């Protein structure tokens, strides 16, 4: 608590107040999602900011769908009601025209405070924040999918090194599979947004891809993709190494599953490592190790997805300078380090590689490595229209209703219709 207060005070003192052509508003409206990772921003940064400037941050934190709806409706109406937008990679395409140029804004901050250290932000996170050459926001959180292992269990099963290929992964899962108590492999299998983050690493690590938006060519039913789904769904249907209730798991549930020792390995969000490995709330606390994705036949084929959240200032706000001051503060080194302790994965190299953090949390270097080669979530506005049928197809394959080939062929047919509807030519 003392440490926290100290941090707050120091950050507030370091904040150069806008010099201020702009009159000071009473509050800044922040619209974001209600994920459990911005508590530092809500409970610590915002009060510190209010203390320093007298401006209250009015947080509107919503479940994912209403968050999107709110931003879509308000921004496309050109409303000045939002001062700070928090968005994630998949939204870049449609949100970009409404946001300021953040490369310029970052330089503006740097001009005032060189110690803010813009080059410290990981290249991968800046790429993810960029859409068609424009930097649409300042990275605040990066997420990526990595492998989580209960190391001791693998060793007991006679597996000395962490799996590097799909085949080794499968063998390790079978070797550590001791149903009905604990299973070999956990995944988020509910037909919802988490399903994509569970499947994409396998797709990419198999050399597969979704579609080529430049040519409109659909790649989701090509042999690589089919092989990926066949392996991934096979873990459930053939090898039976996945807990049956994983079909209802989304984000919280896979964390809870790890905490209650339902699986020996899982591929999921890197920052979940903190929650699963915390002995205070987890039965398996302290037992976990992390690694990047195995490849289909060799380790270097391993790829994963990269996503993240960005703070951005819309073109329509009247309080740009104040919004920028808040973003500057929230994304400062001190506050990002603090946010990491409470479950965030900040995009600053100095924080992620901080030895104190590495020893405290463990997974950050793995996440940093995964981000280097990771594939950002597709940001083209058409992509969300294609997501739903892929979710359906994945769910059908996991339940064994369709083979990988049938499921993905059906998805491809739906995507053809979707692309046609969106007016995109197909190659």
């Amino acid at each position, binding site marked *: 608590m003392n440490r926290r207060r100290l941090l707050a005070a120091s950050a507030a003192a370091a904040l150069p107040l806008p010099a201020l052509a702009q009159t000071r508003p009473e509050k800044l409206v922040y619209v974001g999602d209600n994920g459990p990772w911005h508590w530092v921003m809500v409970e610590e940064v915002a009060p510190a900011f209010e203390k320093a400037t007298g401006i209250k941050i009015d947080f*509107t934190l*919503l*479940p994912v769908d209403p968050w999107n*709806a709110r931003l879509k409706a308000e921004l496309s109406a050109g409303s000045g*009601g939002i001062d700070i937008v928090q968005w994630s990679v998949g939204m870049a395409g449609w949100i970009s025209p409404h946001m300021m140029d953040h490369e310029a804004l970052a330089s503006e901050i740097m001009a005032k405070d060189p110690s803010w250290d813009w080059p410290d932000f990981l290249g991968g996170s800046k790429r993810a924040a960029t859409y068609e050459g424009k930097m649409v926001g300042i990275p605040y959180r990066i997420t990526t999918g990595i492998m989580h292992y209960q190391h001791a269990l693998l060793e007991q099963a006679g597996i000395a090194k962490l799996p590097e290929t799909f085949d080794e992964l499968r063998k390790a899962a079978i070797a550590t599979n001791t149903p009905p108590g604990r299973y070999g492999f956990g995944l988020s299998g509910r037909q919802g947004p988490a399903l994509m983050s569970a499947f994409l690493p396998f797709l990419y690590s198999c050399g597969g891809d979704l579609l080529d938006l430049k040519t409109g060519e659909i790649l989701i039913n090509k042999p690589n993709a089919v092989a990926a789904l066949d392996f991934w769904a096979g873990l459930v249907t053939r090898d039976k190494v996945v807990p049956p209730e994983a079909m209802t798991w989304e984000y*919280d549930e896979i964390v809870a599953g790890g905490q209650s020792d339902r699986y020996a390995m899982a591929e999921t969000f890197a920052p979940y490592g903190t929650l699963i490995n915390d002995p205070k*709330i987890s039965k398996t606390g302290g037992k976990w190790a992390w690694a990047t994705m195995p490849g289909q036949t060799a380790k270097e084929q391993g790829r994963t997805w990269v996503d993240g959240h960005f703070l951005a200032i819309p073109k329509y706000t009247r309080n740009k300078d104040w919004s920028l001051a808040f973003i500057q503060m929230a994304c400062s080194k001190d506050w990002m380090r603090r946010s990491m302790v409470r479950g965030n994965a900040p995009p600053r190299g100095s924080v992620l590689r901080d030895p104190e953090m590495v020893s405290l949390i463990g997974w950050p270097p793995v996440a940093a490595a995964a981000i280097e080669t990771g594939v950002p979530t597709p940001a083209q506005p058409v992509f969300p229209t294609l997501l739903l049928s892929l979710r359906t197809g994945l769910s059908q394959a996991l339940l064994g209703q369709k083979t990988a080939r049938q499921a993905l062929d059906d998805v491809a047919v739906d995507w053809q219709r979707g692309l046609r509807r969106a007016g995109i030519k197909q190659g």
Partner: protein
Amino acid sequence: MAALTPVGSSRRRRTEAFTVYAALIALTVVFLFPLVWIVGLSLKTRLQVFASPPLFLWRPTFENYAATLARADFGQAFVNSLLVSAGAVSLSLVVGVPAAYAMARFRFAGRNVLFFALLSMRMLPPIAVLIPMYVLFNAFGLTTTRTSVVLAYTTFSLPLVVWIMRGFFEDLPRELEESAWVDGASRLQAFVRVVLPLIKPGLVAACILCLQLAWNDFLFATVLTNNATRTLPVLMAAFSGGDTSTDWGGMTASGVLVILPVILFSFAAQRHLVAGLSSGAVKG
């Protein structure tokens, strides 16, 4: 029909009463068990919640309630829910009751059209108007205000009020107001002083159903509110997100606190509810 059949011996009647009680108790157990179990979970510590086999007897703890009530956002959401529900209920009644009266008593052009329009609005899936309504409120600078939520809820409860109240007004003998009119009272005076006092049960029923609608809505509140103006169901949904999902005690405690007011209110007004539902419904 209301009493057990008078034929047969008193012994037979007693066995019948016994069967009826047994069936009722079985039904009550089935229908209330989920709720009782949830209340039970809310009185357990984290360890007790996940105990295997489940605990059926334990020393109750109130820590979950204390933790929930100590949250500033819970109190705020509770107040928001109260304000929004009260606003929606009173606006619907003030606006809808005179309309229902007019429809029950007076012939005017477009009466059937209006009634059918109101009815079909009752049929409409609310999702259809969610985004357009948002855009509309946005144009008037009303988004994230409680007013916008009150207005949205009112449009859903208005048809309900008109439907129920029209039934009540039609049941009332015309002579009552007519004699007041003859005595020189204006239409409005007759309505307020003579008619309204007689349909109190209907008002109570309409009030409960509107309250239930407003208190329980989730979809509109998620889109139309922000952290300062959000209502309890929205807060509930936020509770369950993230690393709190394993906090079953906290979730159930807040759930119980959310549903408690409506349940108490409906207990208090249960008799009117029965009357209201049937009157409005069958006359429709």
